[in-house]
């Protein structure tokens, strides 16, 4: 068997699987490393793992973004021993809202936004998800909303940072042949709406 006999569609699919797995691994690593850093307030982390979720979204589409983000939360929790702890549910709620927000924004305004904008929305969604989960699980008192504006303020900046890093990563990756098909959207099932698409 020679490489030239390989079916291009199967190759694309195989590449997607392998790279997503790699993205997940990198995301988990970033997440775990982050938790080792000291922070003034807990839960206030940079969210660098989101770089990989963004990369998956841009290269492979919304489904892939879900894969990376949910797997990262799960595996990260397993590694850190926090599965099903309150913090785990906060992170999961944050990830759910963040990923949903990012995918919606990507679909709706992907042409007019860069990864930075998408990431900022994702960060806001993450903050909102965590506050909602905290309200339900940790503090059954509406007063928790007092923390939200300050929380949101800081997450916008971390969102810009991760978005910028993701943009840089995407630029580098797209130059490599392994990602060519992904970059042109042939491997993705979703891409931003173009004006010439039939509706």
């Amino acid at each position, binding site marked *: 068997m020679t490489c030239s006999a390989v079916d291009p569609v199967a190759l694309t699919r195989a590449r997607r699987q392998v790279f997503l797995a790699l993205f997940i691994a990198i995301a988990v690593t970033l997440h775990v490393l982050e938790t080792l850093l000291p922070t003034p307030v*807990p839960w206030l982390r940079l969210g660098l793992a989101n770089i990989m979720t963004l990369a998956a979204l841009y290269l492979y589409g919304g489904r892939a973004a879900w894969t990376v983000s949910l797997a990262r939360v799960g595996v990260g929790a397993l590694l850190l021993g926090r599965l099903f702890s309150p913090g785990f549910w906060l992170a999961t709620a944050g990830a759910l809202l963040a990923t949903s927000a990012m995918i919606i924004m990507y679909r709706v305004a992907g042409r007019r936004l*860069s990864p930075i904008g998408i990431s*900022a929305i994702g960060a806001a969604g993450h903050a909102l998800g965590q506050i909602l989960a905290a309200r339900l699980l940790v*503090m*059954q008192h509406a007063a928790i909303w*007092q923390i939200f504006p300050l929380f949101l303020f800081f997450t916008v900046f971390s969102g810009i940072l991760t978005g910028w890093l993701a943009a*840089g990563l995407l630029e580098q990756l797209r130059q490599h042949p392994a990602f060519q098909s992904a970059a042109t959207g042939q491997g993705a099932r979703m891409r931003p709406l173009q004006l010439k698409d039939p509706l």
Partner: protein
Amino acid sequence: MKTPWQVMTGGDWLVVLFLLGVSLTGIIWIATAPAGSRVVVISGEQVRFTAPLGQPRSVVLDGPLGQTRLVIDDQGVRITESSCRQKICVAMGPASHTGDLLACVPNRILVRIDNPDGKEAPYDLLSR
């Protein structure tokens, strides 16, 4: 690698400014709340303790993890000791404005400042 400003599009700026605007509005709204007059301590869903802000006092509250100490003085109310691991509650500093919050989440203690005067009757029922 391009700088963030080179990457950001007009749409990005809209999003970022919108989010910052929302959060700043919220922050200002909370920071300009009037000085509170009463400290309320809540554990879980129940109010455990209330006291006015004017009188200096020190109180120890029990929670699932152990004890948390609250001190009320002329700076407001703050948590001075707690049996949680990270002591974030202690680092939160004094609270004195209406709506301010202090919390020791692991020990399930939530401290709020509110301003009940003029909004409610001095008592619910009269014993005679």
